């Protein structure tokens, strides 16, 4: 995988820390877990604790108006806000997006709120299930709305998978740019919370807290900005045991690329059982700084790797040092990458 000729010109983020990338960096640097709130269950009381860290209410200046956004769910609104911030960060006028823009969208759960609502209606009475809701349940609805909002009629694609699928998307974005299919590419990963996904996380571990948001990166072959110089992986695995055994190799391959002090942005959750292998793998290096976004935000699922990359870009810009992003994944493959200023 070679993406070293591609620059991250701009970044944007929506997270439990706020509606911009700066708030994300500030919160993660502070390292204090954001307040969690109980996740309501419709209809009845849950017999076990389940909490979420949600994106705060949208500030007035972040409300985007477009016919497609009237009905769209939170995941689309987060994506649009993060994309507009990334475009502005790259020096583009968000009101007049550049031509030749492509979109690669990554998610794991997708439009869960409308999906749950629609299926509830189907179970109640399928004859009265809303035809307005069903199209919003489709995985690529957020990418479609964003494309419509920005007027992008070229290459737009949605990938579903583990959060680190964003590295495969990055590889393809680089190909699209090199080959002229697009001039620049928005790489976006987003997720929204609902009670079902929040509960699902607690089955993995009772202390996992669901979060949500979007991370956006504007990629270009020109214009400057940090580059993803080295991508390590995918190191594919078929079990948790294989994953744990592969992580030292992931770390060793990554460390071989480093020749100066670096920042590590890891994937740790704060739950030792889940973090043990990753913690051990990276412990051999004298990191300048270690940032652990999930300890602050919670589990942002499909958006989490994008938020790491946004943080990495900001950190690389600021420190002018390399940044290592650790993306060990949970059920398919491990990746890491090195960002250089």
């Amino acid at each position, binding site marked *: 995988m070679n993406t070293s000729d591609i620059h991250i010109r701009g970044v944007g983020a929506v997270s439990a820390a706020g509606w911009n990338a700066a708030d994300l960096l500030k919160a993660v640097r502070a390292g204090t877990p954001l307040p969690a709130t109980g996740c309501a269950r419709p209809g009845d009381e849950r017999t076990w604790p389940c909490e979420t860290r949600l994106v705060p209410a949208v500030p007035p200046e972040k409300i985007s108006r477009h016919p497609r956004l009237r009905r769209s769910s939170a995941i689309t609104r987060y994506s649009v806000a993060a994309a507009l911030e990334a475009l502005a960060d790259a020096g583009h006028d968000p009101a007049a997006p550049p031509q030749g823009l492509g979109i690669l969208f990554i998610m794991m759960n997708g439009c869960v709120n409308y999906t749950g609502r629609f299926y509830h209606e189907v179970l109640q009475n399928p004859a009265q299930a809303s035809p307005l809701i069903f199209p919003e349940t489709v995985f690529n609805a957020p990418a479609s709305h964003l494309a*419509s909002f920005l007027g992008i009629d*070229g*290459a737009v694609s949605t990938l579903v998978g583990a959060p680190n699928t964003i590295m*495969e998307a990055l590889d*393809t974005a680089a190909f699209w740019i090199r080959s002229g299919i697009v001039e620049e590419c928005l790489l976006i990963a987003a997720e929204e919370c609902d009670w079902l996904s929040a509960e699902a996380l607690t089955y993995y571990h009772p202390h996992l807290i669901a979060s949500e948001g979007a991370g956006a990166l504007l990629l270009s072959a020109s214009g400057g900005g940090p580059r993803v110089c080295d991508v390590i992986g995918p190191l594919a*695995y*078929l079990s948790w045991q294989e994953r744990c055994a592969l992580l030292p190799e992931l770390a060793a391959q990554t460390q071989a690329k480093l020749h100066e002090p670096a920042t590590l942005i890891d994937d740790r959750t704060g739950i030792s059982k889940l973090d043990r292998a990753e913690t051990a793998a990276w412990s051999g290096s004298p990191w300048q700084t270690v940032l652990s976004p999930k300890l602050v935000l919670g589990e942002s699922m499909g958006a989490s790797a994008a938020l790491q990359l946004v943080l990495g870009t900001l950190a690389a810009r600021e420190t002018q040092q390399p940044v290592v992003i650790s993306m060990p994944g949970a059920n398919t493959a491990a990746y890491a990458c090195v960002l250089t200023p």
Partner: protein
Amino acid sequence: MNTCVGSSTTVRDESHPFPIFSSVPPPPRQRIAITGAGIVSPLGLGWQANEQSLAADRAAFRPVELFDTSGLIAKTAGVVDVPAENLFHRVPAHKQALVDRGTRMLLLAIREALAQSGRETMEGIDAMVIGTSAGAMPLGEAYFENARQDPGRVPSQLSRAEHYQPQRQMSSIAAEFGWHGPVIIVSNACASGANAIGWAADMIRSGRAKRVIAGGYDALAKLVFSGFDSLRALAPSGIPRPFDAQRDGLALGEGAAVMLLEAEDARQSDALGDVAGYSTATDLHHLTQPDPEGKAAIRTMTNACAQAGVSPAQIGYVNSHGTGTPFNDVAEAAAIAAWAGDAVKNIPVSSTKSAMGHLLGGAGAVEAVICLMALRGQWLPASLNVREVDPAVRFDLVQKFRHARLEHALTNSFGFGGTNATLVLQRRTA
């Protein structure tokens, strides 16, 4: 992995009848060989069964018994007879229920593709790129229903939550072959399968991979079936009539298909054909309805043919998206006419959805394999159930199976969200 840096060829095409920003695809740097293909559809399991059904102009719609359709308008679909035995030999018997029906179909298709290329394993495969729209939706439905029924913790919910994830389903396939490699899951609604094949071809064309399994799948699911029913998109009669003047909707189906794509310089078995061209674009008209002029479709057909180095007149068969809905078919007919120009009246077009239904995320892949079968067999599958051809149709609508000479076939896939994709396949002669 590729390290080359090509020059940008993106241009604004002012001469186009619809002056829109047009992305010119890169020239083909190498042939993308198809060395194996597998297909599972309502018409049958495997290449031979599907070929025989298409040759017999057989349709495969029957009442849906996988879930309750009593409150719905439509009650039939193209249903696959998935073998009852355990297909996944490495999945313990007590976990077989966690392998989704669609994943089982996909495994059968992959096994057929590998066998066709003389392989028993996935060793040497660099990546798997799979399109799906619904993934393992029935497991998600079961998770939802259990959660609603019981406010307490239900132990089996962890397994449902885990296996609902499409990447976890793909891991089951990887484990079946003991294969370790990247799995990329494309989800662009009904264009997913075509996009996955195009994505894989791009991976090879760019040098990022030598050998990729690519395709798509989707199984029938209550939520999706109810969704199309709520949109009144399903033909009340259960009979889809693409390009008929009185068509009244589509029929859903299920299935899977894959191709084993190989770089020509890495090919390890005889090629069945080539992926010669691919293009994707986005229709911004509406979330679910196509632009009446089919502007995005015109671009994808034009660009895919440009990449393949062929003119519309050289396309010997078009497998249309052809859902049978009023909006889709008229827009696609307009797009084909605009793309083909004077050649339109000689271009044979059909919709095989008329025989098996709309396979959603699997449609593009299944229809691409049908194009490959047509190129290999030198025949054209039919658009069934047409009583009176829509006046928008200016092409040669194939209404009965027939033999023909063709060197190139084109397949269109258009999805919710406006994703349009076109693939051009090329015949290989010995």
